[in-house]
């Protein structure tokens, strides 16, 4: 049986988290009245020119540094030409020749065999990061054979992150994207919410036999979540293997993922291969970035992007945060992953630690098993939890001081979840869950139980 080696690369477009667009001063906002966030430049009216937004440059530099890239101190803008109704200029301004950042890497982790207890770290090379414009949105009205165009998104800044084909399956692709998402959110360079189109992923997939050259690749688009990314990639790998084993060939084409059917469908363009006629953007000089050494003495600081200044101010990346959590609190690496995977959970955990005497290694169990499962069951985010970190800390203190048993604590937690505003202590008193300390009282209760049982035994033997 011949083995196949699947090869997966990714092209990720992340919308830059900025107030205004890449080359114009119109607002960046999801969901606004159609064509209300559009300037004359965005609509490509004659006589308008692109003016680069410094915040977008900083976002790209931050992201490049976080992904261990070399930042190109001189990068260039180009025009990529194609015709489509949501691209009013007929070209997109991008960075094809010399992008802002190159040659980085991203480390991500996977669980082996779906067991949280065994994690392995992998790396994917980052080929480059480039700045480019987003296009407008097309709403297809097949019934009336027309397309409605909204240019609100046209001109929004994007960072295209190109990941080399170092991945081998859907799980790896999903894990890499998830880690990139966390990094972008930590940096603040993109909010990276896939559901709002702030993070779009296209997968390049091919298969080949070990030792042979790479096979023909297809590009898979229309992937709307990290979960669907894994499914789409795995489906496409299976489809290609099946096709090749049946003696067929793979076409170098673009395929769309259909989430309902769970398969990829050919989007083959009737017009054949695109010729984008790349040319330098004549209205923009090269983008020059500086560092501490090359900083010009008397330049207006508003006109300067200083790579070293940005590097010094980078926040702790997820991998660093996880390592710190493990070191500080003695929790397991896989626990740190779960803590960072849920927005606000790490902060919640640390706040509980601050307010309780219970050891972190015990607290983590309550966070990951009790709190998290209740949140998941009710589809709630950490910030919407009816049980605040302070309340949970109070409860854990009662448990730690042996004032209640652990099963009683679970009951109190369930009661707290109702969000009726009672404190753990109030619930304990209400339900009489206090652990009995008095030896004599305990003896009385035990004797009463034994007496009752003797009566029952007596009934038993007669009947």
């Amino acid at each position: 049986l011949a083995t196949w080696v699947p090869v997966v690369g990714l092209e990720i477009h992340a919308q830059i988290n900025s107030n205004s667009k890449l080359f114009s001063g119109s607002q960046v906002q999801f969901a606004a009245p159609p064509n209300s966030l559009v300037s004359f430049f965005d609509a490509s009216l004659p006589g308008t020119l692109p003016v680069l937004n410094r915040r977008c440059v900083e976002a790209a530099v931050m992201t490049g540094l976080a992904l261990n890239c070399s930042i190109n101190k001189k990068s260039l803008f180009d025009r990529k030409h194609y015709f489509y109704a949501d691209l009013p200029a007929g070209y997109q301004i991008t960075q094809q020749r010399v992008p802002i950042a190159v040659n980085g890497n991203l480390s991500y982790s996977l669980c082996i065999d779906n067991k949280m207890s065994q994690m392995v770290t992998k790396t994917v090379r980052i080929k480059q990061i480039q700045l480019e414009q987003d296009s407008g949105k097309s709403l297809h009205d097949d019934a009336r054979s027309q397309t409605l165009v909204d240019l609100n998104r046209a001109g929004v800044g994007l960072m295209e992150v190109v990941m080399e084909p170092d991945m081998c399956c859907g799980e790896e692709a999903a894990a890499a994207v998830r880690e990139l998402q966390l990094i972008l959110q930590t940096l603040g360079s993109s909010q990276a919410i896939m559901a709002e189109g702030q993070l779009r992923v296209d997968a390049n997939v091919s298969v080949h036999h070990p030792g042979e050259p790479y096979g023909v690749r297809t590009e898979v688009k229309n992937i709307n979540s990290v979960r669907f990314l894994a499914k789409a990639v795995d489906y496409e790998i299976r489809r290609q293997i099946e096709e090749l084993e049946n003696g067929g060939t793979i076409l170098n084409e673009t395929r769309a993922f259909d989430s309902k059917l769970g398969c990829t469908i050919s989007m083959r363009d009737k017009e054949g291969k695109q010729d984008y006629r790349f040319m330098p953007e004549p209205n923009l000089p090269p983008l020059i970035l500086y560092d501490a050494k090359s900083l010009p003495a008397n330049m207006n600081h508003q006109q300067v992007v200083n790579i070293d200044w940005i590097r010094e101010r980078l926040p702790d990346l997820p991998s660093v945060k996880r390592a710190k959590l493990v070191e500080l609190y003695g929790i397991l690496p896989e626990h740190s992953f779960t803590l960072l995977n849920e927005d606000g959970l790490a902060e919640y955990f640390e706040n509980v630690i601050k307010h309780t005497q219970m050891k972190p290694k015990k607290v983590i169990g309550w966070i990951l098993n009790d709190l998290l499962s209740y949140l998941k069951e009710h589809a709630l985010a950490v910030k919407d939890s009816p049980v605040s970190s302070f309340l949970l800390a109070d409860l854990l203190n009662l448990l730690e001081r042996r004032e209640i048993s652990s099963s009683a604590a679970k009951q109190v937690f369930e009661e707290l979840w109702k969000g009726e505003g009672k404190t753990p202590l109030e619930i304990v008193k209400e339900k009489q869950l206090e652990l009995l300390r008095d030896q004599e009282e305990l003896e009385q209760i035990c004797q009463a139980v034994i007496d009752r049982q003797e009566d029952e035994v007596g009934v038993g033997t007669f009947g």
Partner: protein
Amino acid sequence: EQVPAAVLEHLERLALVDFGDTEGVRRLREAVRFAERLREVDTDGVEPMDSVLEDRCLYLREDDVTEGNCTKELLKNAREKIEEYFVAPPGNIPLPKLEERETFEQQS
């Protein structure tokens, strides 16, 4: 020299320019010939120039919202609009193939 018909068609399709008649193609040929004179210059070891702006400073703008909110004005240019959306055909309408349309080749 002749510009091959296939190249002409490719250019017309990419740029949506109609060379129309012999005069249009003649001008194209002249333009190519003019540009080819650049090859006479020895550019060994010379950095290519991107644009006449390349030594200028690229101005960086502050990230403030200063434009937009002119939906009415923008839609004034639209031939068709529906509820503040521009209306376009359902997809790109591919240019008919060379054989199917009248180009200068067929006219001459």
